[in-house]
């Protein structure tokens, strides 16, 4: 009789532990997925921003010097993206590499080229340039959103992965610890108005 009771208790405890582990694993999996999705969104918006900048540079709405500077910064950012296509499972060795710096450079180039007068002029003669500028703005806003949402997701992942049960039972598997992406994504103030 006693053995039966003890066995039942042991089974119940084991089931409880199993449920708790599986619950935490599912939670972590969901968080990893969220971080992956957010990173892929950020990646896509960055590509869009570079492409829109190239379009703006080639639209003829800017002076050639500004156009060349923008085209340079945008194509470098695009090239870096194409060299390192994100793996299927983004968390395998997820890293932005040197791209943070390149994206900051593009932000700085946009900031330098798009002063209030230039933006006003582009918007006044409503042609290709104005359209491209609109696209730069839209992509720029979405880069800001995507980066913030990504970093939020990473913060959540890292917090859960610090939990003792996650570390002890290696619930994260071999997924790398995601890192926040830090670069300057400020839009030129004149563009945002």
């Amino acid at each position, binding site marked *: 009789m006693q053995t039966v009771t003890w066995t039942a208790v042991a089974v119940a405890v084991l089931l409880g532990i199993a449920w708790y582990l599986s619950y935490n694993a599912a939670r972590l999996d969901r968080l990893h997925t969220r971080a992956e999705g957010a990173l*892929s*969104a950020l990646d896509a918006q960055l590509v869009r921003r570079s492409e829109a900048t190239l379009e703006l540079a080639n639209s003829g709405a800017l002076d050639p010097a500004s156009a060349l500077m923008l085209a340079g910064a945008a194509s470098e950012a695009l090239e870096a993206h194409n060299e390192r296509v994100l793996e299927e499972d983004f968390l395998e060795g997820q890293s932005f590499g040197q791209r943070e710096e390149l994206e900051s450079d593009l932000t700085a180039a946009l900031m330098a080229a798009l002063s209030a007068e230039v933006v006003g002029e582009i918007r006044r003669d409503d042609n290709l340039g104005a359209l491209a500028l609109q696209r730069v703005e*839209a992509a720029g806003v979405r880069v800001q959103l*995507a980066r913030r*949402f990504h970093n*939020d997701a990473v913060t959540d992942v890292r917090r859960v992965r610090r939990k003792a049960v996650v570390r002890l039972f290696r619930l994260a598997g071999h997924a790398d610890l995601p890192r926040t992406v830090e670069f300057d994504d400020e839009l030129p103030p004149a563009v945002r108005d």
Partner: protein
Amino acid sequence: MRIGIVCPYSFDVPGGVQFHVRDLAEHFLAQGHHASVLAPADEDTPLPEYVESVGRAVPVRYNGSVARLNFGPVTAARVGRWLERGEFDVLHIHEPVTPSIALLALWSAEGPVVATFHTSNLRSRAMQAAYPLLRPSLEKINGRIAVSEDARRTVTTHLGGDAVVIPNGVNVSRFADATPNPAWTGTEQAPTLAFLGRIDEPRKGLPVLAAALPAVLAEHPGTRVLVAGPGDVEAARERLDPAVAAATEFLGMISDEDKAALLSSVDAYVAPHTGGESFGIVLVEAMSAGAPVVASDLAAFVRVLDGGRCGAMFANEDPADLARQLLRLLGDPAERERLRDEGSRRAQVFDWAVVAEDVMAVYETVTHGVDDWREVRDDRADPADTRWTRLLRGRRGTED
């Protein structure tokens, strides 16, 4: 895009969050999106077509006051059915940390979730006690929005992480197109001032305005003060200095149309609020209607008025400073004209057209991520992926 919006507060009573949800949904519907709102409401409350009632809310004591909340298995099942039927691309939950359908929706949500935080007062004993329980649900939020810097600070301190600030929207044209009412329009000898808000709620600041008025009346004896808002008029009148009471007209509760007309008629709108305002939508309404604004220097007001460029500001709870600002404005028609112009321009920033576009950018950002991982997941779809394994994993993944 198919948008599901959850509003935890009952549509039976008017309120800031309810109006926000209504305007947002109507804006997206007008743009050709599909939008459905889930909210509590009494059975006999007439609801717009796009609002689905989750049943009537139960008054319960929560967080120090009586709140009308929805909970329990029946409500949870209704929320689940609405989610299933809606097949939303994005679920937008307002005030997710209320023990109501907001939390229930978050609990059963599986797709991308956007949450908007309206309050600048999240800290509650209940929340702290239930925090470990809430955490996994809150982790489902893909994009957080705060309606003001104060609301954002609350999110960062109490939940960690960050939120993007997208302010409340105002239907600028509704106020800009209002016809001034001659009865409320000021003249050189008898300028008019407007006050809006509960007259017996000291935080709305009527006592501060009352204390500033004797000095104003001394220089402009014809000044009329138009007070619009609910409350006990007789009691309020008794608290006033006799000269001030003679200059004050109580209009009681007024309709939205009258509010717009009032704001477009007066020589100044006074916002002497002493605290508790996280955004100040009424300031934007006044600016839209073209009323020069005189407001206390609450952080939220300073931001709406762009650091005082688009309105006159006075030291909070300082009647002498308020009187100084009022006298400066009443004696300077050119300055009033300038504030009208600056205000109308500033109000555009808060127009629904602009605000809704920012919200749509958030929707697009969070849904983009999901489409991508869904593709990846589908490519890797495991043949052993059964209902049972999905249940174990937390019911997420490949049901579409």
